[in-house]
Structure formats: structure tokens, C-alpha cells
């Protein structure tokens, strides 16, 4: 199977996801076409496999691809993050390829639209309110209950997500998000550039569900526990461990709630990445994104005899058979190495010692020496990723913490 099937991957120039998706395409033997938002240096020499598309304009991107593909028919299109998922949906819709409807993907991309949609369908979401950045924040704070969480409408990876317990903290967070949205490296437009979301802080454990929608049915690929407390003021993601240690009944409720959320949004095909909180009132949906897990985190996942998450996603988009969606038996986990403070990364030590930690599979330092690094809530990168595999989730979590403690970063 494969060979002549032409697959279009939408790869932002700054995504972590390129290597894994390109490798999956190579493994499947497809005719790979890559599109980015900026021209490749090789585009003029390889116009049959490199494209430049404006991902922020899904309809425009769809029109460009429709014209390009008249002589080069596409079998599938896949976006790798929130922005490209919207463009991929528009392209797929235009060309009759397999994907969720563009309106559903757009609703999942906008946190306000998503909460409206889910609340209307009776899915548990925090109480929420959209606030214009033109409002006086002191007056805006009168309309919310504390503690609350302020967040941009469309950014991901916890960027710009800030807890406020008082009016004073609300005002500080409001101004900080407004400044963040004005940064040159933030490319939000429209309502997302002019508003933020304020919602009730939901106490409880947080989990991430990685799933694949096939013709409207949700298949859970992995449920990750996030063992580090995420209580604010910022919500830095660090450790993900699967399988979940939550009781089976709770995991079933998470599955059911996520299914209800996907149905409410109208998502029917392709990968989803959901974030939920769980407390005595049950699961609460914080996010359902029409994409797979971010960063390099997918490297924790192996299916059947070693198939990667990216292979599964590409096979699904191509309409090819997938032998199994069953994750391998061992527990696995990843630590997204946080940036402790802003500055320039001058050096990294202890990588070999971290790699030598029992159950550690790999340590990838993705930041480069000389790079400006910015911590949350303003930043959007990690220093690197640590991967572990062991018989139990506890052993995985312990290994990740030990390995992380062996890394030393010089930032000044």
C-alpha cells in the first residue's frame, strides 16, 4: 500500500511536530507534499512537493491548494496544530477529503465558541465570560467570581493562562494578556486579538485525553495523568504519564464526557487532544482541540507492534487500514522541561547523567545554546523533553523527576 498516494502536510515553520510527521510519511511511503506559512528555500526547485500557504486564511489556503492540485491530486491533508487544523479542514472540505467540518474545527479553536457550544449541549464547562480588551479591567472584574482563570481565546500550551484570586490580580492578568497578544510573535487576529476569556477556576486533578475520531466515534488512544498540581497562578505543563491511575469508573466518565464534547462541537474525523479537570462533580472539559498532542510528547506513544501516533493519524486521513489502536502495555511518560527564568541559554549539563537514569528512554534538549528563552505565561517553548518507559506509571513519574533533577541549565 502507498507509493503513489499524495499527502499534504501543513507544517508551520516553528512547530515541534515536523520531524515525527515527516518520518511517519516516509515510513508509509507516501508522496509527501509539505506546506508552510513561509516559503521554503527549496520551493522553486521542488514545486511539486513544497507549498506556501496562509494558514490564517483557511478559505484562501483551500483555494490555493485546489488550484495546485488540479494536476497533482491529493489523497489526504493533515494539519499538525490548532492553526493548521483549521486550514486542513477547509482544504479537505474543498477537495472532498477526510476531515471534520471546517465549522467544527473553528469552534474547537476558539475557546469562547467552544464553551458556548459545550454549555448549550449540557457538557460540564467552567462558568465563562468573554471580555473585550477595550473594557476597563476593574469594571470587568466585577462581573466574575473568584478565583477565576483568564486566558486568550486561541493560544495553546497554557500560554497566557493566568489565575486571579482578587480584583487586583485580575487587573494584572488582564494587562499581561493584552500585552502578550500585542507581541510580534503572537499572530492572533480578529476577535481573538481583541478579547480574552474569564472562567471559573475548577479545582481538581487534570488529565489529557488523546483520541482519534473515526466517522464520529471516539477511540481513546491514551489518557494521561498530570501529576504535578496545576493550581496557578500559571499553568505550566510538565509531566504526562499514561496509563492513568484514576479509577476505571472515572476514566469511563472522562471518555463519555469527551465523546459528548466532540459530538457537541461536530468533530467527526481525525485526532483530538482534550484537557479535562476531574473533581467530585465529575469531569469538566477545559479544551477539545482538533489536533494531536503538541511538542514532542507523542513519542511516548506506541501502538501495536510499534506504530507511532503520526502513522495512525496519516493512515486515518488516507483511509488506510489501522491494525490496532491499542497502546503498548508498558507505562510511558514525558516531561516537558520548563524554562525556569527568562534569559539566554548559555549551556546545558547533565544530559548524559539524565539519559542514564533507570527507565529513561531519551532526553531531547530542543532549545539551542544562545537562544532567548521565555517562561510561561509569555513563552511558548520548552528547554527540552524527557521520555520514560517502565512497568508502572509510578516508576515512570519517578524516573522523569530524577532525570530532570540531573539536568543543569545556565541561563543569564
Amino acid at each position, binding site marked *: 500500500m502507498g507509493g503513489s498516494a499524495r499527502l499534504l502536510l501543513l*507544517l*508551520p*515553520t*516553528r*512547530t*515541534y511536530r*515536523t*520531524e515525527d510527521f*515527516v*518520518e511517519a*510519511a*516516509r515510513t508509509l511511503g507516501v508522496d*509527501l*507534499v*509539505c506546506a*508552510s506559512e513561509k516559503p*521554503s*528555500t*527549496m*520551493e*522553486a*526547485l*521542488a514545486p*511539486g*512537493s*513544497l507549498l506556501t500557504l496562509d494558514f490564517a486564511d483557511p478559505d484562501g489556503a483551500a483555494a490555493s491548494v485546489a488550484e495546485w492540485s488540479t494536476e497533482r491530486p491529493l489523497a489526504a491533508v493533515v494539519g499538525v*496544530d*490548532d*492553526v493548521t487544523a483549521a486550514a486542513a479542514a477547509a482544504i479537505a472540505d474543498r477537495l472532498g477529503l477526510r476531515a471534520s467540518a471546517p465549522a467544527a474545527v473553528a469552534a474547537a479553536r476558539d475557546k469562547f465558541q467552544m464553551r458556548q457550544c459545550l454549555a448549550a449541549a449540557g457538557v460540564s464547562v467552567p462558568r465563562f465570560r468573554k471580555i473585550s480588551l477595550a473594557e476597563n479591567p476593574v469594571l470587568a472584574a466585577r462581573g466574575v467570581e473568584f478565583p477565576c482563570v483568564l486566558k486568550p481565546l486561541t493560544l*495553546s*500550551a497554557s500560554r497566557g493562562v493566568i489565575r486571579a484570586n482578587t480584583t487586583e490580580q485580575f487587573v494584572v492578568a488582564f494587562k499581561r494578556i493584552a500585552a502578550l497578544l500585542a507581541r510580534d510573535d503572537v499572530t492572533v487576529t480578529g476577535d481573538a486579538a481583541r478579547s480574552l476569556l474569564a472562567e471559573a477556576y475548577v479545582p481538581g486533578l487534570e488529565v489529557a485525553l488523546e483520541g482519534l475520531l473515526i466517522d464520529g466515534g471516539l477511540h481513546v488512544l491514551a489518557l494521561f495523568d498530570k501529576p504535578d498540581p496545576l493550581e496557578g497562578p500559571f499553568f505550566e505543563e510538565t509531566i504526562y504519564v499514561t496509563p492513568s491511575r484514576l479509577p476505571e469508573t472515572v476514566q469511563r466518565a472522562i471518555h463519555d464526557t469527551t465523546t459528548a464534547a466532540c459530538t457537541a462541537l461536530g468533530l467527526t474525523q481525525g485526532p483530538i487532544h482534550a484537557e479535562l479537570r476531574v473533581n467530585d462533580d465529575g469531569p469538566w472539559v477545559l479544551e477539545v482541540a482538533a489536533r494531536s498532542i*503538541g*511538542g514532542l510528547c507523542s513519542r511516548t506513544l506506541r501502538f501495536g507492534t510499534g506504530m507511532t501516533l503520526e502513522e495512525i493519524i496519516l493512515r486515518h486521513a488516507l483511509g488506510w487500514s489501522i491494525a490496532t489502536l491499542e497502546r503498548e502495555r508498558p507505562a510511558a511518560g514525558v516531561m*516537558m522541561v520548563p524554562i525556569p527564568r527568562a534569559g539566554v541559554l548559555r549551556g546545558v549539563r547533565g544530559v548524559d547523567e539524565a539519559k542514564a537514569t533507570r527507565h529513561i528512554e531519551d532526553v*531531547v*534538549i*530542543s*532549545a*539551542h*545554546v*544562545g*537562544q532567548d528563552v521565555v517562561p510561561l505565561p509569555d513563552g*511558548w*517553548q*520548552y528547554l527540552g523533553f524527557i521520555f520514560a518507559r517502565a512497568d508502572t506509571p509510578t516508576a515512570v513519574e519517578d524516573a522523569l523527576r530524577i532525570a530532570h533533577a540531573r539536568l543543569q541549565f545556565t541561563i543569564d
Partner: protein
Amino acid sequence: MSEAAAPDLKTRVQDLIDTMINPAVAGHGGFVELIDVQDNRVYLTMGGGCQGCGAADVTLKAGIERLIKEEIPEVVEVLDTTDHSQGTNPYYTAGKS
């Protein structure tokens, strides 16, 4: 591949790198070095702006490999041997989006 054919194939790949690929990737401060050609597989490294670049795999697989295979059909694969973790000036730095 016969031993006699290897130098010729390597020379043709080198010519392609010199005349087409390196002038193109120089636009982002990058360069490509041919390491070897074995069993019709091209081994190369990427340097400068390409080393550690978030788009290096796109440049390699959808650009460089595609061009080399079109121009020299006996090439079956192009493999990157670069240690991208040692890149100090990548053109694009990856982040979680």
C-alpha cells in the same frame, strides 16, 4: 551499485549540491555537505541555519531529496546525519503551538 559507478554518482550528487541546493539554502544561512553515497543512498549533513532548524526535515525530504531523486533517479533515499542538537543558529526555532 558497482564500485566503478560509485564515484560518478557521488560526483553528480555533489554537482547538484554545489550548483542548485547550496545556493538555495544559503538564503536562510544554511549549507549542505555531502558525506557519502552508498548503495544509492545519499548521506549528508546540514549546517548553518539548517542545523537545528525546525523546518530542516521539510527542506530535506520535500526539497533536497525530491530534487536529487528527480535529477538522479538511481538515488533511492537521502539521509541526514546531522546532529541537530548542536545547532547554534537555526533559522527557525521550534515551539509548542
